[in-house]
């Protein structure tokens, strides 16, 4: 790798936070404490001890000893859960706040896009806000002049550019803000979560814009909760957890592991008597994933059929029950839901008191390579309707590709294979009066 553009060494940031008050305080202690507190704070102020002055006494490391390099033109995604330190890292790199320990060196003009529309004033027109916002973000006036038309065109604000921005819809403000920032032309760019703004069409445009900025050779460090946009734009991902670096590598690999770990669900979950997983009529006793050989697992091959199995105990006679299973994708979109009333022999009949096992079979060559959390809802359907239990994220299924045997990809191994599902389709070809049929991948 050539000389790094961003070089981060042991970067750490500590905050002082207020500790929880002791709960078992007598009234006298509380009165004494609240009377002496201002004096302690003034004492802290006079002695230059700012943490005492601000009444903060617990240390919290938002970022702890993080090191990595970013080469020129690399596009790196920062992933991790809320509070993992992603935004803290971007704030340190964009000099908004100082590190407690460690160093970072950045070569080149930095543009940071941490929030769109920074410094927008409602009383100023869109045009005036473009200049104001541009200067705050680090553009010279002449530069804004030069790019002004482009900015307005990208934002789709059109004739409203001279209207005070207080009359703008929130979408318009966000579009204009993003548009200014996207025209910064920095050599190093930090992007935090701004790809999640505006409506779907504009989000797509934003993602494409960032991708094109990256394609022009700009070094980009991007924070996003949306794993798909990271995979789409980034070559490399750095996974932070609890302020520390967990993993650093090719984006698809890191994200796959991040998603499976962050979802953190096993292939089986049992509910004892002490867990509320039902009502008066029935209770969900267990839910598990079985592969085609009947083993309980949370990982299945994409070619393989598997089932989600639920153990239900019925307490009250004479009641009809319905189980619904929801499969979500890793970024929390619904993949599909299924209800067992599809089987007419169960639907309106009362379930006998005792244990029942219900299985939903999902065919092979159907789901995409992803991690699917499974949720369940158990209703009493007759004589009256009442929810017994409903919860998301009970177990999960990782759909993986072992590479053995035909799939829809049919040996097509380069590049991504997009889409929310991955079924094998029937194809046919007509040539010379003969029709050849085949399943793809066979």
């Amino acid at each position, binding site marked *: 790798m050539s000389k790094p553009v961003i070089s981060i060494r042991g970067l750490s940031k500590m905050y002082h936070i207020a500790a929880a008050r002791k709960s078992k305080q007598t009234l006298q202690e509380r009165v004494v404490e609240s009377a002496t507190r201002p004096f302690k704070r003034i004492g802290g102020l006079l002695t230059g001890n700012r943490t005492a002055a601000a009444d903060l006494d617990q240390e919290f490391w938002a970022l702890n000893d993080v090191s990595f390099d970013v080469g020129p033109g690399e596009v790196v995604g920062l992933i991790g859960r809320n509070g993992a330190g992603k935004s803290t890292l971007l704030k340190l790199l964009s000099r908004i706040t100082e590190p407690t320990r460690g160093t970072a060196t950045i070569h080149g003009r930095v543009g940071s896009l941490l929030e769109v529309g920074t410094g927008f004033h409602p*009383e*100023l027109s869109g045009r005036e806000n473009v200049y104001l916002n541009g200067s705050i973000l*680090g553009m010279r006036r002449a530069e804004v002049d030069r790019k002004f038309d482009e900015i307005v065109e990208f934002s789709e604000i059109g004739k409203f550019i001279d209207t005070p921005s207080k009359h703008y819809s929130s979408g318009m403000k966000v579009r204009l803000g993003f548009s200014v920032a996207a025209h910064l032309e920095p050599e190093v760019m930090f992007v935090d979560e701004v790809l999640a703004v505006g409506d779907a069409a504009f989000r797509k445009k934003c993602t494409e814009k960032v991708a094109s900025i990256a394609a022009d050779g700009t070094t980009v460090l991007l924070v996003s909760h949306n794993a798909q946009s990271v995979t789409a734009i980034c070559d490399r991902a750095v996974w932070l957890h609890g302020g520390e670096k967990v993993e650093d590598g090719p984006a698809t690999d890191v994200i796959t592991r991040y998603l499976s770990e962050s979802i953190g669900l096993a292939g089986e979950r049992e509910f004892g008597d002490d867990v509320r997983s039902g009502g008066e009529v029935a209770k969900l006793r267990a839910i598990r994933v079985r592969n085609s050989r009947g083993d309980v697992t949370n990982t299945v091959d994409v070619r393989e059929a598997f089932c989600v199995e639920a153990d239900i105990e019925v307490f009250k006679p004479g009641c009809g029950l319905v189980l619904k299973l929801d499969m979500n994708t890793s970024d929390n979109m619904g993949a599909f839901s299924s209800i067992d009333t599809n089987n007419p022999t169960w639907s309106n009949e009362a379930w006998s008191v005792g244990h029942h096992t219900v299985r939903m079979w999902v065919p092979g060559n159907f789901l995409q390579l992803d991690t699917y959390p499974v949720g369940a809802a158990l209703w009493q359907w007759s004589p009256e309707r009442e929810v017994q239990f409903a919860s998301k994220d009970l177990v999960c299924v990782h759909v993986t590709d072992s590479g053995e045997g035909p799939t829809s990809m049919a040996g097509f191994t380069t590049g991504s294979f997009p889409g929310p599902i991955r079924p094998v389709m029937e194809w046919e070809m007509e040539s010379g009066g003969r029709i050849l049929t085949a399943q793809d991948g066979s």
Partner: protein
Amino acid sequence: MASSSEDVIEIKPNTGWASLALSELWTYREVAFFLAWRDVKVRYKQTVFGFAWAVFQPLITMAIFSVIFGRVAKLPSDGVPYPLFVFAGLVPWLFFANCVNKASNSLVGGGAILKQVYFCRLAMPVSSIASSLLDFALAFGVLLVLMAYFGVVPTANIIWLPFLIVLAIFASLSVSLVLSALNVQFRDVKHAIPFVVQIWMYVTPVVYPMSVVDKPWLETLLALNPMAGVVEGFRWALLGVDTAPGPTIMISVAVTLTLTVVGVFYFRRMERNFADVV
């Protein structure tokens, strides 16, 4: 483009007193300019009288003071008509008071910007002061009209006026730097400022001339207030009152310079944590 790939940014913890690096303010001068321009543009938006408010404020204050301190309390005015006397004091004083009020809240009010983007933080209080200069200029115009009305002709001392205005700017800046930085961590400042400014006016010779102070030690003490020299100087330069405030101004200059240096250092030291506590 402003800079090339030769730019190198070093990010590391700074302990102790930071270097001043005032050249940074120059680098970010456009931000300061646009923030000041925004303040000016926005200040009188959606008002009927607009910029006339910049003139009403000193005029109405003058009318009230002329009645209370001129007529009722019969304070002396160095031989100048009392309304003109008090207005000549109010013009620099209100500039100072407005600066301190606005600049002290500039960082807290602009908190969202501080958290989102880096630029030289000095630009914020500096821009508040720059935008107050417009109101000052308008009030100053009214002062000239009043002088013409009362038939007062400025003396040659008027050549000192630019110097006095610069002194007023630096006095405002130094106080604002300390208070704005302090306000970030202690919002007590916001609540205290109105009182501090009010009391400050009475230890400044706005409604009375310095000549009524008969004890030399008290006069020296009052001169420690940088605005004392500015206000006295204004009257001397414009209205030709014969008491040249030489010693007072010397003390004011010394105090202002000291305060400015302290203010800039304090601000620079505090600014690295602004985004964390604002």
